[in-house]
């Protein structure tokens, strides 16, 4: 039995003025050097548990706290947070808020300085920590000049500079693009290999890879726990707790194949060995339906030609973009952070003006002065719903747009009802938006943009920060809007969502559009996607090995099941 690193008994916590217990009798044992993934739906208590470990709860967030916590057999009762800073490093989701210095090395020095560490020792720790996250060449860089993944690695290095034995990662990959996620996950794997004790919170199955064990929290209680190997195969348990089950595990279950192989390339070899191959008939049916969809695209709605944009200071964010959005399209714009995705879509409703080139909507060139009026026809949902919600009633929030556009009281009422029905918030008109969950706030933000009934809906990363079930709810709702004839444009980093819901995709890299086509065409070009630091979803990689790029597990199961 390894040494105990973390031990909790009957841990309970209720936030001041909180209705329910955030933690409701947690018992926890974790050995030194063990990595545990803590998962669960939004609001399950994951972050609260992490914050208890360094006593930010209850020292910083007061409330009713009870139970026993021990770190390396030392009781934490009465300890101050700073006393634990040298034992426990915390990395948060919002990397912007964790970095406050003007140079990477100064950010790392901050923690040890607070604990009175000598200058020589701080220098040594800076060198070691930067090397541990692969950022030795970045020591003099300003954090603001780094990409999301680099910032998060710097935040990890800053935590490591305190020389902690335990590291807590609270959704450290959520806001990152696929490349950034992979960079951070590689660091976590290497820290695990160095023997650090780790707790990581992540919604994506790929993020759970370094974990020896997975613990599921639900409403502040431990709902289940098992080794990673066992847990990843129980997809219904994962799904019901907000985790996306690995596509390969789902496929192997559907094909009644065992043992399950999670690696898509190895899985393809195994499937071939067992005699599976995509059925010709099923494949041609899929191809025919793809072709019909392409041929039945509506008329051109938005035409982008030769679009260029330079920000003040001469930073060229877009160059030579040509893009056609047709009526009824469900277009996904993908690419790594800083590739120009948001800058591009901000031109489609007048949030930004072109430096060169033009964006034409229904025969008229879109210019920034049209922004307020254009919202009636082209709705724009920002990434963070909290950037737009301001009312104290759900209904008032949804009514804001229709009222601005001069709808009558009766029409406004109808629009509120229709929008709330569509986003699954029917009957919650009088609730306070700020008391809704993040997923509900995201859906409310969408309702408040679709309430004037725009023809086109643009959404900037609508699934970021949501658990699996909330992501599905939001995307199902967009699919429904698309079925009702609305044109949808989304920016996303989540390629399995794109594969499952979008019809077309455009890939951005370095301010240029490097690929465009149907989702299947785009995802079939991993070599081009790689230039944008993107990797096709597992099921598509598996499909490419099998001879046909599947987009969903259901598609693959049908084609392979029929082809055996």
């Amino acid at each position, binding site marked *: 039995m390894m040494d105990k690193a973390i031990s909790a008994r009957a841990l309970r916590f209720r936030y001041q003025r909180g209705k329910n217990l955030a933690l409701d009798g947690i018992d926890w044992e974790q050995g030194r050097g063990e990595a545990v993934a803590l998962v669960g739906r939004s609001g399950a208590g994951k972050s609260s548990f992490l914050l208890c470990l*360094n006593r*930010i709860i209850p020292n*910083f967030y007061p409330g009713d706290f009870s139970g026993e916590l021990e770190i390396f057999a030392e009781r934490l009762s009465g300890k*101050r*947070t*700073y*006393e634990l*800073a*040298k034992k*426990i*490093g*915390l990395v*948060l989701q*919002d990397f*912007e*808020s*964790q970095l*406050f*210095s*003007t*140079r990477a090395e*100064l950010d790392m*020095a901050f*923690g*040890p*300085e*607070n*604990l*009175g*560490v*000598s*200058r020589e020792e*701080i*220098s040594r720790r800076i060198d070691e920590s930067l090397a541990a996250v692969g950022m030795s060449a970045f020591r003099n860089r*300003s954090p*603001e*000049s780094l990409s999301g993944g680099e910032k998060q690695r710097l935040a990890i290095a*800053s*935590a490591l500079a*305190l020389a902690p034995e335990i590291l807590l990662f609270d959704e450290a990959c959520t806001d990152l693009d696929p490349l950034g996620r992979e960079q951070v996950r590689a660091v976590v794997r290497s820290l695990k290999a160095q023997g650090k004790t780790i707790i990581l919170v992540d919604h994506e199955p790929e993020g759970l890879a370094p974990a020896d064990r997975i613990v599921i929290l639900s409403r502040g209680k431990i709902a289940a726990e098992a080794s990673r190997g066992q847990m990843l195969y129980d997809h219904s348990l994962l799904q019901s707790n907000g985790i996306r089950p690995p596509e390969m595990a789902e496929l192997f279950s559907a094909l009644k194949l065992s043992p399950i192989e999670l690696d898509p390339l190895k899985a393809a070899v195994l499937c071939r060995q067992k005699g599976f191959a995509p059925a010709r008939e099923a494949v041609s049916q899929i191809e025919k339906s793809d072709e019909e969809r392409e041929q039945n695209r509506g008329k051109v709605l938005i035409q982008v030609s030769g679009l260029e944009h330079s920000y003040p200071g001469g930073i060229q964010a877009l160059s030579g973009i040509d893009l056609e959005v047709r009526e009824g399209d469900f277009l996904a714009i993908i690419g790594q952070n800083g590739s120009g995705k948001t800058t591009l879509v901000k031109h489609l409703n007048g*949030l930004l003006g072109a430096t060169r080139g033009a964006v034409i909507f229904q025969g008229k060139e879109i210019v920034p002065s049209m*922004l*307020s*009026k254009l*919202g009636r026809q082209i*709705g*724009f949902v*920002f990434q*963070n719903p*909290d*950037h*737009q*919600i*301001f009312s104290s009633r759900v209904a008032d929030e949804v009514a*804001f*747009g229709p009222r*601005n*556009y001069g709808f009558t009281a009766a029409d406004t009422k109808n629009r509120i009802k229709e929008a709330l029905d569509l986003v699954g918030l029917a009957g919650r008109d009088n609730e306070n938006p700020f008391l809704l969950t993040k997923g509900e706030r995201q859906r409310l933000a969408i309702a*408040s943009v679709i309430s*004037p009934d725009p023809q086109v809906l643009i959404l900037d990363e609508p699934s970021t920060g949501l658990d699996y079930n909330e992501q599905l709810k939001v995307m199902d709702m967009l699919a429904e809007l698309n079925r009702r004839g609305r044109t949808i444009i989304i920016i996303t980093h989540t390629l399995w969502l794109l594969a499952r819901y979008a019809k077309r995709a455009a890939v951005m890299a370095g301010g240029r559009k490097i690929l465009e086509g149907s989702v299947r065409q785009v995802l079939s070009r991993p070599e081009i996607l790689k230039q944008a630091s993107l990797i096709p979803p597992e099921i598509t990689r598996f499909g490419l090995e099998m001879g046909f790029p599947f987009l969903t597990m259901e598609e693959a199961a049908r084609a392979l099941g029929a082809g055996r």
Partner: protein
Amino acid sequence: MSEFLFIERESFFRRLHPSGKIISLVLVFVAALLLDDPCYMLGLWLIVLPAGYFSAGFRLLARLWFLFSAICLASFMLWAVFTRAGNPLFALGPLRLTEQGVLFAAGSALRLGLMLFCGLIFIASTPIENLFYGLTGLGLPFPVSFALSLSFRLVPIFSQSASTILQAQRARGLITSANPVRKFQSYFPLFVPVFLSALRKVDQLSVALEARGFGSGIKRTSWIQFRFSRRDWLLLVFCLLLDAGCIWLRFHGLGTVKF
């Protein structure tokens, strides 16, 4: 400071000891406060202006020129309108301008501008870490100097949030009126999200600080070190002489507008 305010560029002012720089800034403020005659203020401007070149002050001023000019102009108009004493120059209904009032207003606007300009030189050439090193060096408790320094870091974060929030509301049909009352009303939808977003940011920042041992009460070490060098002494002596000169002018009844 964030990159928005601090400009990473090697310069004379960038290399100065932060505590010395703070004292020098205060001494220039004292000199500016001793005078109000616009001709003398212009003299002070001529003395201080080269500092803009030896720092990144001009570059920051170029970024903030609109705000800078608006503040100076507002100061001039307020002083010109509300200073009633002196020889009448112009009257229209309740509006009355006097010769001395206009001179005093010009001097006050130049003084405010000068102080802002020196402030810009300071913040453009002082990273946040140097600022709190300087403030703690002058005896301010670390949490206070850190909070003061951090407030500069938060300025661009909040302004960026506010700009996104404004865009989000305009995209939903918010039209900002030219009428000041209506304009204020139309900005209401911005206040709540701006305030909440600021609270969330500060909350996250506080958690990150706590987790890194902030406020431990342990005697803090500083990884960066500065030595008071000859150029620091030279600047201090220069500023002291400037103050002495202004005091001498005041003793001889010069440098202020006579009513």
